[in-house]
């Protein structure tokens, strides 16, 4: 069996993801293949939390200096780290605010 086949037999590696829904004060921790897109992971987070996606919800990295993820939803999870877009798979779902 070639290395490629072995990889196919075992499937892609999985990564642990952590999502927090800021407005609902809910969390979801789960694993997904590193080949999954961030958008797919975000969708999965709603399912795990049993929360409907808000029309204006946005996704950002968690922590004191959040980074908006809107431009990276099509990236695979592995690419997010390989391209140093995120340091960890910790994300926050945020509802809309306004004021300017």
């Amino acid at each position, binding site marked *: 069996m070639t290395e490629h086949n072995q990889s196919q037999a075992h499937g892609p590696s999985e990564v642990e993801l952590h999502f*927090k829904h*800021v*407005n609902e*004060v*809910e*969390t979801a921790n789960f694993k997904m293949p590193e080949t999954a897109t961030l958008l797919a992971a975000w969708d999965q987070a709603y399912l795990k939390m049993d929360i409907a996606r808000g029309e*204006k919800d946005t996704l*950002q990295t968690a922590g*004191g*200096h*959040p*980074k*908006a993820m809107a431009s990276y939803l099509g990236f695979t999870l592995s690419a997010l780290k390989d391209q140093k877009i995120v340091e960890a798979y910790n994300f*926050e779902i*945020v*509802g*809309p*605010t*306004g*004021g*300017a």
Partner: protein
Amino acid sequence: MNVIAPPPVLDPQGGAAAFAEDLPRVLQLLDASRVEDLGWLRLNSLTLLVPMSGQRGEVPEEYLLKLGFQAYRRWPPSAQFVNPETLAFDPEQDSRWLPRLTSNECQTHLRYPHPSGGTIQLVCCSATLEFYDVGHNVEEEHLWSGKSTFYSTIVAIQRAFSESYQGSFGA
């Protein structure tokens, strides 16, 4: 649709109770057991201090956000940047302690006209009490729901730091 929300009604007793109820939920959300684990300080039953920082060059510039829960949770917490020594804000003396935030969702003002006269520091964001206190118009979808917690306020301001920090008003 743009609306003007009715002015907030203060309810310190209810606010303290709601804050006490929400604090453990937020700590759990953030995997913390105490506010100190997050670098925050609960000054009293109605006040939470939250350090924040903005980055323009190599060195982070530090600020201190003071959240007040006098009308919480029907209304969002009061949010004021304060002098870390006095824990108050005097626009004449303390402009250095007010970050200049200019995002679409959150802007800071050193002196914003208050309907009752005079001016106030305004963190102009639909997740702060002062926003409603000055009678700011707001998109209906942005109205504080009364279901959100004070962590929504913290996140909205942190996001403005990341997206639009322009240094200090005193610089």
